[in-house]
């Protein structure tokens, strides 16, 4: 396992930050982000897949009412792939006409999906070797998060109560303040700054727009199952028949 890995530094692997708005579709966006990044790693083609197709075509047909990442992958398998975001764009509410998957050409597809072991070292190894994966966390502390590395305890963030799916895009270790800074104003509190400490962290891509957090991303402490990050580490599996040079995770 390398000491650091950040898929954001590889060109066109990570798509732009999405915004779920008031549609509770983090599960669909996390799965779409996962498929987009793996598709590029496997094929070196950049695609943006349709989140709306996942919302309209998941088993309950009301994707803005919550769901799970495995529902997204099952929908992709059932529909033999996903249309592009351009053809089947995100509206932020379920389509009244239901699933329109058959109308559009598929631009990406998966062979399978799988859940990894709940072990942070194994997750890091898999992430570095294969690409970004989805995780589901307790989002309680994200309500007032601005930047830096969140080091939660089971008391401050129950690891069993996970309720928000995001894309895990990398990990690192260093000063907690060296991540991508948001352009927002400093907090209103007037406390002395904490001394800089070297902390291991995960880098996660959220779906609340690029103005939130660290330009749409946030960081969680790595090594103590902060906010239940190891509970559901799930990823699609893509096998591409044409073998191309693998892209490795930039440090």
């Amino acid at each position: 396992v390398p000491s650091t890995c950040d898929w954001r530094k590889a060109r066109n692997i990570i798509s732009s930050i999405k915004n779920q708005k008031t549609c509770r579709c983090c599960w669909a966006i996390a799965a779409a982000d996962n498929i987009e990044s793996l598709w590029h790693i496997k094929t070196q083609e950049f695609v943006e897949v349709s989140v709306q197709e996942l919302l309209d075509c998941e088993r309950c047909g009301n994707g803005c009412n919550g769901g799970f990442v495995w529902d997204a992958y099952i929908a992709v398998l059932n529909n033999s792939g996903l249309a592009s975001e351009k053809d089947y764009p995100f509206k932020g509410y379920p389509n009244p006409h239901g699933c329109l998957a058959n109308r559009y050409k598929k631009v990406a597809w998966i062979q399978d999906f799988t859940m990894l072991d709940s072990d942070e070292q194994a997750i890091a190894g898999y992430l570095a070797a294969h690409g970004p994966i989805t995780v589901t966390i307790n989002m309680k502390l994200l309500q007032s998060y601005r930047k830096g590395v969140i080091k939660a305890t089971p008391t401050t963030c129950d690891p069993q109560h996970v309720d928000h799916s995001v894309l895990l895009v990398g990990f690192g270790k260093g000063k907690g303040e060296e991540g991508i800074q948001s352009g927002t104003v400093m907090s209103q509190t007037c406390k002395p700054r904490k001394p800089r400490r070297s902390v291991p962290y995960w880098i996660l891509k959220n779906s609340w727009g690029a103005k939130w957090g660290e330009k749409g991303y946030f960081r969680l402490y790595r090594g103590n199952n902060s906010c239940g990050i190891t509970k559901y580490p799930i990823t699609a599996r893509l096998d591409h028949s044409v073998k191309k040079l693998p892209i490795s995770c930039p440090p």
Partner: protein
Amino acid sequence: DSLLTKDTGPRPLELTEVFKLFQIKYNRSYTSPAEYAHRLNIFAHNLAQAQKLQEEDLGTAEFGETPFSDLTEEEFGQLYGHQKAPERIPDVVKKAGFEKWGQP
């Protein structure tokens, strides 16, 4: 203490002023004075909570005002979480160890 009353610079913003800036920044308006008062109360509570988190956090995170500062914790969970607790994981979600990748 005379130091406390001495004018040492710009005065801190009042809560209502901070809330006004929040409303402008995130384009928030409320339908009635009662709703405004309710949201102001939640906003104050959330800023206090953020300050508590800041003091308790073991990492390097900074907590404070965000676009969700006028929502209760329950509203935040209902609006942005996926809410449903998984009853069971489908059989197709198989446990797979890292070393097993690529095996039939």
